[in-house]
């Protein structure tokens, strides 16, 4: 197991090198002179030269990459062109809201989707099943921002239960944070919930027709225990896989949600950086997201061994 983890971590090195290469050449692939791109549309030739020298863009390209990679290895993601702050500092400032949003979304989605999927599979082709599946279609079809505005309208503006937008950091107290994150988490969680409910139903349906489920009934195991103990654990591998894939998809959802709810997180940082063409920030974020994705994948693969003893690494 430990050997497997080490192997997997080593295997991430080439992946991250490719990502770093891609990110590095991103700047050089954009049409035109990178120095001119960074200096902006109304920069004078002298200013462009200044940028070129300052960023080392006058050096041979392989040397530039060498410096970039060396800095990366030391945890230096570069410096924002506009604010002149290290990208890592900017990321750290924006990290908390995004992580809280992602975890809350994950929690909301899983907490609702799994019971819904289990119920739908147990009562397959019944009214409850059709209700859950109908909801799931809705969850896919309706875009995140629309859910967001509807939730804001109903729960913040009409009922006044929750704040309209903004984020309260954990330093202000957990209850404040949770209140501020509830609507965004539901808005973002809806698609995710639909996805997980659907796969839970499908996976459970398959498991419920297995011989060992009949054995469980023949032993006198109660229905609830048949579903939640005997069946769900067997159905878990596809479900956690989809949860992992969903986490990756969450990134684009986070950008939209943070915009709709005015949350100062990584999603907003990404949008702002793209609009301002602050390349070092964009590059740093891509590397960060790629690294997160690799780690999530590893965590998912490791979780398989917990659910299925036949899977051993």
């Amino acid at each position, binding site marked *: 197991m430990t050997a497997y983890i080490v192997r997997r971590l080593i295997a991430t090195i080439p992946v991250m090198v490719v990502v770093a290469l891609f990110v590095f050449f991103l700047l050089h692939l954009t049409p035109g002179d990178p120095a001119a791109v960074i200096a902006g549309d109304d920069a004078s030739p002298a200013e462009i030269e200044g940028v070129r020298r300052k960023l080392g863009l006058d050096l041979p390209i392989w040397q530039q990459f060498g410096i970039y990679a060396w800095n990366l290895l030391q945890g230096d993601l570069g410096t924002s062109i506009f604010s002149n702050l290290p990208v890592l500092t900017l990321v750290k400032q924006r990290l908390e809201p995004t992580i809280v949003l992602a975890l809350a979304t994950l929690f909301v989605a899983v907490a609702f989707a799994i019971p819904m999927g289990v119920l739908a599979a147990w009562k*397959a*082709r019944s009214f409850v099943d059709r209700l859950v599946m109908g909801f799931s279609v809705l969850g896919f079809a309706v875009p995140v921002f629309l859910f967001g505005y509807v939730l804001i309208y109903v729960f913040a503006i009409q009922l006044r239960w929750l704040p309209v937008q903004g984020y309260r950091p954990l330093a202000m107290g957990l209850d404040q944070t949770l209140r501020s994150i509830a609507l965004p988490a539901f808005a973002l969680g809806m698609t995710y919930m639909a996805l997980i409910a659907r796969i839970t139903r499908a996976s459970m349906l398959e498991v419920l027709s*297995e*011989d*060992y489920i*009949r*054995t*469980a*009934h*023949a*032993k*006198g*195991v*109660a*229905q609830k225990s048949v579903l939640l103990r*005997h069946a769900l*654990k*067997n159905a878990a591998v596809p479900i956690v896989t989809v949860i992992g894939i969903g986490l990756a998809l969450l990134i684009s959802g986070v950008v939209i949600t943070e915009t709709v709810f005015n949350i100062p997180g990584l999603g907003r940082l990404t949008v702002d950086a793209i609009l301002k063409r602050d390349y070092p920030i964009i590059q740093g974020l891509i590397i960060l997201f790629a690294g997160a994705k690799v780690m999530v994948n590893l965590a998912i693969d490791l979780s398989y061994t917990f*659910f*299925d*003893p*036949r899977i051993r690494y």
Partner: protein
Amino acid sequence: MTAVAPAVSAPIAAPAHAETILSVRDLRTQFFTRDGVVRAVDGVSFDLKRGETLCIVGESGCGKSVTALSILGLIPAGAGRIVGGSVRFEGTELTTLSEAEMRRIRGNRISMIFQEPMTSLNPVFTVGQQIAESVSIHQGLNRRQAWDRAIEMLSLVKIADPKRRAGEYPHQLSGGMRQRVMIAIALACNPQVLIADEPTTALDVTIQAQILNLMLELKDRLGTAIILITHDLGVVAETAQRVIVMYAGRKAEEAAVDELFRHPIHPYTRGLMASIPRRSAAGRRSQVRGRLQEITGIVPSLREEIPGCAFAPRCGFAVDRCTREQPPFEAHRPAHFAACWEAARVVGTPR
């Protein structure tokens, strides 16, 4: 339907004083499919005495498994249900029990073993956990006690090194060992009745005898009555005290085992016997274990109601009446019953 008299005068039947523990009367179970109603069990009656071994034999698809599942109330609700008849266990009617009351009987007082040892155990729990679950449900043992009991059961079914095996998962065990585990689960709560549905069919020939002998040995030790379902007349000869031959959801013949092998009445039973290797004069089977071969013709679709004898299309003795009227299930010899209009003629014809 003729009432089934207890096989009092049968040569090796259960002791005459033994009380009936399970009594099935005119059981009818149907499935409702897109192509129509399947009459899987169509009026089956029998009694099981305390400690007795009753074999139900017949070709695949004749309703043996459905009979077993009906007794335990395990017919999948969406697919079919018991539409008539009664199942009485120690005087309690099971067909009308609530689900919660039925759960207290399943795995506790009536247990079942299935055909497929490879798929009948849950792959994500250790075999120890799966045995312990039964005893903790039914006997309220705590974790520690249930685990000890699981190990005790593993050694009872002669699994070597039970302490270590208890912590293993089904995929780490061979087919024969898994079936031993199934037996351990089934017997963990000392049930009065064990229903074994083709428990050795999926196993290696060499393992089959071991598993059968183990079941019979434990049955004697624990005083459990067994309903052994099989399509192998060889298994019947080795294990049964009484035999029911089933065809198309109905009983074709019923007798004590030696009586049945010496004087088969129903043409279907004779067909089954003709397709196994010849037995020695002592009535013991030869070493070669023969699987039941198909008698010419096919098992009828159970989708249409069969007005006469279900075996008529395949029967060499059939007369006009056979296709029109259902033959009564009645005694043709002492404690020997069959459903055949032409029984007298069949018996008079040498095999």
